[in-house]
């Protein structure tokens, strides 16, 4: 072991500490403060008043929260199935094509847009006399007067489609990277053994892609759970709270209604659900990896 490396080993905690302090001050401390606030009534000005489990009790009696949970689940399923599923499909269909990158480019371009910009543009496209309805009417198709964003849960479905439009490209890109990193030998061996098409994909390519699929599905799961910006810009969770997700409910309760205590309880619920879902998912994936 070199002298420099030994020195590094001795002081490694010191080297890590600035980053640790940074994370602790900006993440863990605010989280603990939020957890404390969730047991209080607090308007952001006067001192918080401890109210025990009142906020949590209120959570389970609040039917707006039920709608919020339903929409969050729709987002989770939607973000895992659509942008990831379609991204995989485009990646598989295009990765060994000649000039495949040109084919993939249009799918990737929407990713360059910010969430807020995306929301504003699609908000106008999907409004009652917006482009979507105008196109349907022009083509003589039914549904030219669809209220895409005014009725729940249709507004959530519409926003998931918008999200898919933007996110498909980046998922596709990650899958292409995954596909390109697969060793060629097992695929060639499988081909010699007569595997092709769906069987080749299902039994050889898909298992070899596990490292990248774990990451992509994990990211999609978390993105679905914490979805906020697109909903806030397009509908602000409305009308009548019909398109709220847990993240929007949290923001609304804390910053719009000035109910910091109740909003913090929603934040704790969202963090717990996201943490648990990520943990269970990653444990399962790790378990499978070990089993292999």
């Amino acid at each position, binding site marked *: 072991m070199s002298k420099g490396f030994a020195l590094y080993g001795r002081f490694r905690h010191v080297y890590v500490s600035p980053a640790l302090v940074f994370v602790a001050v900006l993440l863990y401390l605010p989280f603990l403060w939020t957890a404390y606030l969730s047991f209080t009534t607090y*308007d952001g000005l006067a001192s918080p008043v401890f109210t025990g489990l009142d906020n949590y009790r209120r959570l389970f009696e609040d039917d707006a929260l039920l709608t919020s949970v339903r929409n969050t689940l729709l987002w989770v399923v939607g973000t895992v199935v659509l942008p990831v599923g379609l991204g995989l499909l485009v990646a598989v269909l295009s990765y060994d094509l000649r000039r495949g990158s040109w084919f993939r480019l249009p799918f990737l371009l929407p990713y360059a847009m910010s969430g807020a910009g995306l929301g504003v543009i699609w908000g106008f496209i999907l*409004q*009652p006399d917006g482009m979507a309805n105008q196109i349907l009417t022009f083509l003589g198709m039914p549904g030219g007067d669809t209220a895409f964003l005014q009725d729940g849960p249709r507004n959530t479905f519409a926003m998931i489609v918008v999200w898919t439009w933007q996110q498909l490209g980046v998922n596709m890109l990650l899958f292409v990277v995954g596909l390109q990193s697969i060793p060629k030998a097992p695929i060639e061996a499988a081909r010699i053994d007569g595997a092709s098409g769906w069987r080749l994909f299902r039994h050889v390519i898909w298992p070899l892609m596990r490292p990248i699929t774990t990451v992509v599905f994990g990211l999609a799961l978390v993105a679905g759970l914490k979805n906020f910006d697109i909903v806030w810009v397009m509908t602000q969770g409305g*009308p009548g709270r019909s398109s709220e997700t847990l993240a929007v409910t949290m*923001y609304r309760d804390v*910053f719009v209604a*000035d109910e910091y205590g109740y909003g913090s309880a929603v934040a704790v619920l969202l963090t717990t659900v996201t943490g648990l879902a990520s943990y269970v998912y990653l444990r399962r994936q790790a378990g499978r990896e070990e089993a292999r």
Partner: protein
Amino acid sequence: MLSSKRLRATALTLGALLIATGCGSGGGSGGSKSELKLYNDKGAWKPFFEQMGALGKQQTGLGMKPVGYTDEPTYTAFIKSSFRTNVKPDLFTWTTGGRLEEIVKQNQVADTSAIWTDAIASGDLSESLKKYYTVGGKQYCVPLNTAYWGMFYNKKVFAKYGLKPPTTWAELEKVATTLKSKGQVPFNQTTPTSLFSFAWFEQLLAGTDPDLYERLSTGQASYTDPAVVKVMERWKSMIDAGWFSDPGDKADPADHFKSGDAAMVISGTWFNTSMTQRGLKQGTDYGFFFIPNVEPSLPKTSLVFESGPLCSLRKAPDPEASTKYLKWWITPAAQEKWANARGDVSGNPKVKVADPELDKVTKQAAGPGNRLVLRYFEAAPAPVLTEALSGFDGFLNKPDTYMKVLQKIQKANEEYWKTHKAGS
């Protein structure tokens, strides 16, 4: 090794310096200031604030630089957090009603009672405005802006169908019926509906029972009161009659006036700014009338008004300079510039508004036949308002849900007044 040590030492020194300067620059510098920062949630008004900054510098030697936010919740959170830190605004905009009371109770806002006493004596502020700036017998802040709510109407559409601005509720209904029969939607929604969905609720309720409207805002009445339910039923019947534009339309109503689609929209007089920015002229392209009471037997016409305060903090970086600026802000010279730049009315009754139509509105509003009622946005406490805005927005899309909407608002109302003193 030595160079690596030197490198680390340099990095650490630089870091320490950065932290030290960062901490130092955040605090209030104290001393006498020659330029104040005015924090506001009216980002779109930046050019008007800048004009005021230049005028103030010229007239008092005290400059002003606006720091505009466009997202109201972010702005509110910033101002509230500034109370607990050393980064305090010199001046800031706020809202009257419960929110003003809230920050005054925290002993944060500078007392402006002396400014009000002098200004009322000199006629720069009206006595009728004073109560909206009074908490516990003292005045806080001064009016940043004042606006009256009424109906903007399209003069060309009215002329086309031979219509005149109504003076009674029955006449307004007749105008709406005529327009509808000609295929013209009578009322455009005040957008965004997520923010202004309360407009018709407050108008119908204040025009039916202004006392109930005021009691509702102070926790002394229920949202499920039969009279409130009746107001919602009236509103529903107007929606069912097809009198309103689609609530999903995101366009600014001024765009619909520009294209000639809109006949009427309910809004504050600040909507003039949106109209004039689109090249429309009051008196030629559009007009404005105060909405007659639904209940004709009421002794006075209920006139919804809003007044946004301009405040300074008790512990402002330079309290003297902030107070000097507030005193100047309400003078006729400052107010004339402020009102005319934006094309809106002024809180100073002495100010001559250049636009003759707007001047007429100001004089009409001050008439003895009117009863001012505070806009719902300021009158309702924040948690109740939030529930009401969502509820009314939902109701616009699904009018059958009105009872459920009222019940939800009432739940929030009860929740809020459980921990606050009703009637205050």
